[in-house]
């Protein structure tokens, strides 16, 4: 089984190729360059492994939450490759991929959503399995609530809002790892058993997990707030 995986939901983007048990990954340095570099990197990754796109079993991608444009880059590239190669895609929760780097136990994956907010979700990690304890939400960092337990906190939110998060919830954490980001390697590892299990979808069914859905005010809302039409 060969699975190509893409994760471009944050500044440090990466792609990976899983062939059997073996995963090779490549990072795409620099934010503005993701879109410039991603196809070239995919082409070399496939070439190095001696396979072509049609030899892939599926394309997995980190489907969010994260930077909107980054999410669409991964999704669009996954869709294009899948259509061109006649294969399926598999959207993988970017926070689950992040949580897998946290090791055994309860993991709170939380990333910086800008505007003083965080994307976060809780997972139970057992070996290579990541099961959601509660699903992804977007809230002000200062309003994040966390159920009882011994949590590992992982992700950029802990770097962006260290005082707010640790100050309020400090005693819930058995550890904090603020440097990890969602990576294509874990996207591929989470995808592999699901590809085998026949969970791939067609490219037109690949949905993104934006979480933040209110992105503009309607004319009526603007007027109600005393603005102009």
């Amino acid at each position, binding site marked *: 089984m060969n699975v190509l995986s893409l994760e471009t939901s944050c500044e440090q983007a990466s792609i990976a190729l899983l062939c059997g048990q073996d995963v090779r990954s490549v990072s795409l340095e620099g934010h503005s360059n993701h879109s410039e*570099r991603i196809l070239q990197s995919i*082409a070399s990754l496939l070439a190095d492994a001696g396979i072509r796109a049609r030899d892939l079993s599926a394309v997995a991608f980190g489907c969010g939450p994260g930077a909107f444009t980054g999410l669409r880059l991964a999704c669009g*590239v996954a869709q*294009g490759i899948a259509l061109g190669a006649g294969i399926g895609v598999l959207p993988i929760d970017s926070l689950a991929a992040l949580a897998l780097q946290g090791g055994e136990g309860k993991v709170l994956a939380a990333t910086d959503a800008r505007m003083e907010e965080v994307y976060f979700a809780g997972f139970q990690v057992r070996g290579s399995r990541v099961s959601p304890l509660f699903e992804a939400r977007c809230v002000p960092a200062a309003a994040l609530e966390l159920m009882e337990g011994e949590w590992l906190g992982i992700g950029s939110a802990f770097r962006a809002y260290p005082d707010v998060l640790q100050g309020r919830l400090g005693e819930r954490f058995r550890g904090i790892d603020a440097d990890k980001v969602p990576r294509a390697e874990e996207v591929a590892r989470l995808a592999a058993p699901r590809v085998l299990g026949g969970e791939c979808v067609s490219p037109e069914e690949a949905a993104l997990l934006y979480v933040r859905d209110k*992105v503009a005010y309607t004319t009526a809302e603007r007027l109600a707030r005393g603005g102009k*039409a």
Partner: protein
Amino acid sequence: MKVLGIETSCDETGVAVYDTEAGLLSHRLHSQIELHAEYGGVVPELASRDHIRRLPLLIRQTLASAALEVGDIDGVAYTAGPGLAGALLVGASVAESFGLAADIPVLPVHHLEGHLLSPLLSADPPAFPFIALLVSGGHTQLMRVAGVGDYTLLGESLDDAAGEAFDKTAKLLGLGYPGGPQLARLAEQGQAGRFRLPRPMLHSHDLDFSFSGLKTAVLNVVSSEAWQPRDAADLAADFQQAVVEVLCAKALAAMKAAGLKTLVVAGGVGANRALRLQLDAATAKRGWRVHYPEPELCTDNGAMIAFAGGLRFAAGERPAQVPAVRVKPRWPLMELRPPQVA
């Protein structure tokens, strides 16, 4: 050569297959007008979200309706600019990676070149060289078109584009979104001649335009004491006539100066009935001709992109060696060159 065309620059998702021998095989369009209506204008983030949700199915349906498989496609063309960055990125990612996986060449296409060449897709196409009047929401330009990618700018709007003037004036008159077509509809019910609106730059002795003053003149009328909302249709008719008169006069002046008898009109404002009537009459009198795109190809669409890409492919143009997802939200049309033969 069968070319898959993809357009996602603004608020329409368009897909088409153009065969350089057999012509247009199929095309599909999804308009987002309803999605943006309650916001009073295009919301870029929502536009991007809709493009990525619709594009793969639209591609599949376009192929299916022409009984084609992915393996039948020989090349891909997509709109790389100008337009909304996020929206363009959707088309670019899907198009470029489709080409990579299917091992076929992919060409970025200029959105306005698509519009400009779209009348060539009609049953009775114009021949090069011709004068083109490009009138859309973002552009008002007159140019000499000697061939694919061989464009000379003769004049353009110094401020608002003609379509933008229609849209802004529609807003002043309290019409809904999108304003241009609604203003045109209202104008049909009115009688021109009651309001003295300026004809900006009509006698400027060049081929440039200016429409922002016209909008201000309308604003002055509707904010005066004497304004009666029941006169809106008449005011709309006067506004439309002013725009049409200037567009028409300058287009004819351009033809005369260039010694060309063929005019091509492209862009959304080209759908305006009054503009068409006046251009048709003025050119017919002189034995000249005007060409418009087929009505269904007047808005943004994938067919014009597949076609423009197809012409460039057919002339031997091939993409740069290294595939990349790269868009040009601002991309002057005059930067284009004739097809580069690899």
